[in-house]
């Protein structure tokens, strides 16, 4: 049935190009599955840090990979898959957040207490920590968008300033200056909150 040149299926000859196409598709599927296994968790964390809602974050990760499937032809041209994927999920979550225009769910102290790691903490300490984090996150939300984005991405230990610049589409020096401004602003906001207490 099969020859070295082409495959014959019944009366129809399947030419070499079709066989190559099938093989290429299979290889792309394998590569895509590897990307999912390797980067899904990281993408989820990026999505969660913006949306602060587990279901929305998971939806955003799924949408990211569906977009990758749609543009699978360009998969081989991508230099750094990790940064590329983070950039896609970043755009998706920003778009979703803009559309929803709701406060992140994790600003709710009870929800924060549920999701935060609770190892070695009593219930009282955990509640206090949750309250503190909720307050800090509320202050972060008050930052200007550009500074907030840089500060949020800088929290990911696996992202360097060069990679943050690549995700946001800006220069590395802009990342540094925005991060500096963000730190000053957040310090001011937290000081103001402490003095007003």
């Amino acid at each position, binding site marked *: 049935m099969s020859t070295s040149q082409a495959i014959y299926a019944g009366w129809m000859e399947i030419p070499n190009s079709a066989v190559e196409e099938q093989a290429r598709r299979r290889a792309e599927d394998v590569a895509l599955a590897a990307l*999912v296994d390797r980067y899904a968790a990281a993408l989820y964390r990026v999505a969660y*840090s913006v949306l602060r809602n587990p279901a929305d974050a*998971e939806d955003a990760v*799924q949408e990211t990979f569906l977009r990758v499937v749609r543009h699978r032809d360009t998969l081989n041209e991508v230099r750094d898959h990790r940064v590329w994927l983070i950039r896609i999920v970043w755009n998706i979550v920003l778009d979703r957040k803009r559309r929803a225009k709701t406060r992140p769910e994790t600003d709710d102290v009870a929800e924060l207490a549920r999701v935060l790691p609770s190892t070695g903490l009593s219930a009282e300490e*955990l509640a206090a*920590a949750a309250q503190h984090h909720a307050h800090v996150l509320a202050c972060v939300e008050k930052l200007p968008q550009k500074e907030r984005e840089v500060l949020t991405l800088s929290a990911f230990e696996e992202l360097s300033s060069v990679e943050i610049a690549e995700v946001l589409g800006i220069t590395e020096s802009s990342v540094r200056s925005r991060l500096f401004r963000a*730190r000053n602003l957040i310090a001011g906001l937290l000081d103001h909150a402490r003095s007003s207490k």
Partner: protein
Amino acid sequence: MTTNHHNPSSFGPESAEETLRIVASLPAPQGLEYRIHAALGSAPRRARVLPWPTALKPQSNWMRTAAAAAIVFVVAGGGWGVYRRVEQNRPAKVIVLPPRIGASGGFSAAGAVRTPQTISGPAAPQVSQVRDGKKPTAKAGAKAAQKSSVTSQVAGRK
């Protein structure tokens, strides 16, 4: 990771970054990869274009000839069909044309005849009597006219 995240008294940019770091390092839910694989599996695939069989490749000569013949057949068949339809003896449609509009622009005289106003013409004298069966001559006529005018003058004097 530092562990001051549960110390509410620590305020400052480090505290904010620490909070963000905790949020950024939260573990992904169980089975996330599996669910994504399932979603990708059920996603609609892009349509594949099947290649033409070798014998039916559009580039082959006999395929082109067959296509040309098919076009000729369709065109000729269509023409013949039209011809057949026209050939049938159908009663010709009579179309009543509207009367032509003349130079008068559609207005008529409604039967009116223009009669020019003229001065009444000279009245011819009447011959009173024919004597002896003779036809009155021009001379006799003049005499009679003279006589009648004299008579009328006399009558006027009276």
